[in-house]
């Protein structure tokens, strides 16, 4: 009797199922994406690490300006300032003249705060040169001192030649200046910041979200609905990709319009950068999955995530070129995925190369992706 009831029920259900619309995994996945995106946008740490920090660094470095040489030169209080040599120094853009009491300037010179003190003295002995030019430098600022000495020497030569032009000069300088693309610090720092943003969104975001969803039984509640597990992961990943696309776009667009970041081929370069950002994020999310899988408790997550992100943040060419590190560190630098993402990002943005020309960087990222996801699929835990 019970069995016939069950059979009855089954045929009823099959009828109903063929009438009703099929369950759509994509619709469920998009619901996860929407929920996750809302949650990320309201999470202070995600916003701070993905937009606020990179933007602050960009603003800071954007205002520091280009790589121009600049020297501070003290003018001795007793210096003659009416002569031609002084005028020549005054108009040089790289020279910033300082006028303070002698003792204070000497102190600054010894501490390297100014590069040199100059004193131009009118020579009372009329048989000798008209002016005596004193340049006082210090070990505290060797480079700056050398620059000032050179500039002063140049000014003196020029003044001498003006007074006594040689009948037949030995040589004449014919400088030629090529108007190259100006590689400013923003061109270096912005791709690095983009990498940093992707790294934090990928590793921290993914690790915390999956750990928390698992430990607070949010995932378990999802399992009681008809969504299939891979679609939960896909939905989460899609929300992170969307979030990263938004933050990357803000960083690039603001960098371009406010700080003159070079987008060599305009919109094409912008889109290529976003595509590259997507590849980077994909790899970094794999690290996040691993961390969420191996962390025995929540307080271990930031530790593991920092072990992955901090060395890359410092050494992968985020703030300064990776080749400044000593040779014994180079193997580490050369193995980090962010190094290759940053390198490829800079080449695409500034040199305008295509994806084919950064194939080596992409290959390394691809290898990392393979390794990371191989491990992630083994250590990832649903419950």
């Amino acid at each position, binding site marked *: *009797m*019970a069995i016939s*009831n*069950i*059979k*009855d*029920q*089954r045929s*009823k*259900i099959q009828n109903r*199922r063929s009438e009703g*619309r099929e*369950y*759509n995994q994509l*619709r*469920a996945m*998009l*619901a*996860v994406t*929407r*929920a*996750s995106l*809302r*949650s990320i946008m*309201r*999470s202070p740490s995600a916003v701070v690490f993905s937009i606020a920090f990179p933007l602050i660094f960009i603003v800071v470095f954007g205002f520091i300006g280009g790589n121009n040489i600049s020297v501070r030169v003290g003018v001795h209080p007793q210096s003659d300032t009416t002569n031609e040599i002084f005028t020549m120094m005054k108009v040089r853009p790289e020279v910033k003249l300082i006028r303070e009491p002698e003792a204070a300037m000497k102190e600054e010179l010894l501490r390297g705060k100014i590069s040199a003190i100059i004193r131009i003295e009118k020579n009372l002995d009329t048989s000798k040169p008209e002016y005596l030019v004193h340049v006082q430098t210090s070990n505290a600022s060797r480079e700056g001192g050398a620059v000032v000495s050179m500039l002063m020497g140049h000014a003196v030569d020029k003044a001498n030649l003006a007074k006594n032009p040689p009948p037949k000069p030995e040589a004449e300088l014919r400088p030629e200046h090529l108007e190259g693309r100006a590689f400013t610090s923003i061109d270096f720092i912005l791709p690095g910041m983009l990498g940093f943003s992707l790294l934090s969104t990928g590793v921290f975001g993914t690790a915390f979200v999956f750990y*928390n*969803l698992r430990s*607070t*039984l*949010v995932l*378990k*509640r*999802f*399992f*009681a*609905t*008809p*969504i*299939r597990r891979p679609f939960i992961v896909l939905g989460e990943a899609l929300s992170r990709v969307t979030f990263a696309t938004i933050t990357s776009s803000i960083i690039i667009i603001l960098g371009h319009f406010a700080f003159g970041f070079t987008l060599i081929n305009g919109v094409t370069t912008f889109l290529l950068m976003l595509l590259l950002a997507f590849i980077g994020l994909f790899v970094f999310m794999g690290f996040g999955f691993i961390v969420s899988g191996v962390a025995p408790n929540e307080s271990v997550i930031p530790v593991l995530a920092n072990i992955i992100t901090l060395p890359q943040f410092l050494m992968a060419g985020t703030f300064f070129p990776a080749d400044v590190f000593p040779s014994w560190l180079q193997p580490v630098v050369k193995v980090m995925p962010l190094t290759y993402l940053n390198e490829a990002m800079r080449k695409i943005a500034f040199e305008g190369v295509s994806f084919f020309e950064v194939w080596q960087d992409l290959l390394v990222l691809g290898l990392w992706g393979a390794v990371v996801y191989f491990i992630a699929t083994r250590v990832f835990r649903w419950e």
Partner: protein
Amino acid sequence: MSTHRKAIISVSNLRKQYGDFSAVKGISFEVYEGEIFGLLGPNGAGKTTTLEIIETLREKSAGEIVIDGLNVDHDQNAIKKIIGVQLQAAGYYPNLTLLELLDLFSGLYNVSIDNKHMLSLVGLEDKAREKYKSLSGGQKQRFSICTTLINKPKIVFLDEPTTGLDPQARQNLWQLIRGIRKGGTTVMLTTHYMDEAEQLCERVAVMDSGHIIAMNTPDHLIDELVASGFERKKEVKKANLEDVFLHLTGREWKDE
């Protein structure tokens, strides 16, 4: 006795083994369509394990389970569509309001719902824009139950729905659960409160260390015990302390 009623859940010889430990040791029972069925027992008796196996959240070690004609072995996704599940101590997606959480669940179940109406069913319409975290214990449980109703399920599973709630919130939740049953939905719940089972359940199964040791209507089980010569040591008064408490503090919803 209740053979005239139709079974919507049939469990036979269910076993669950965790390594050397047997959590469920071959239990069989049926839940009839449209009833409130209680699985009683002390902590660790195997109630939650049994419930979660029926809910398709855990694998069983042996036995057969058929839910509304669907077998848990090969119709898991079809089963998920016709059941509503409230987990013991489940959390919800962080940083979202109740309305947004219902959006999420309507997507997960592929149904279109009127979110606000859903919340009004459990008396949470005023909390629509609050976060789950900010709700009181009773409100959290009501919201959990709300999420189980989204797909208009045939069966709702509630795992210790009133544990940790104050008497008003419990009474209120019982009303809600009776309302769900009235709407034609079968309810299966676990509890370790006997008063709850007596008030709410038409039939109960008592579990102890992985076995079902009794199964019948609460009335029948009590009569059986009395027939065996059992007598309470203390004369039963016409009211108990809970009645006093509720009389003093009011029967209204006191969540806020």
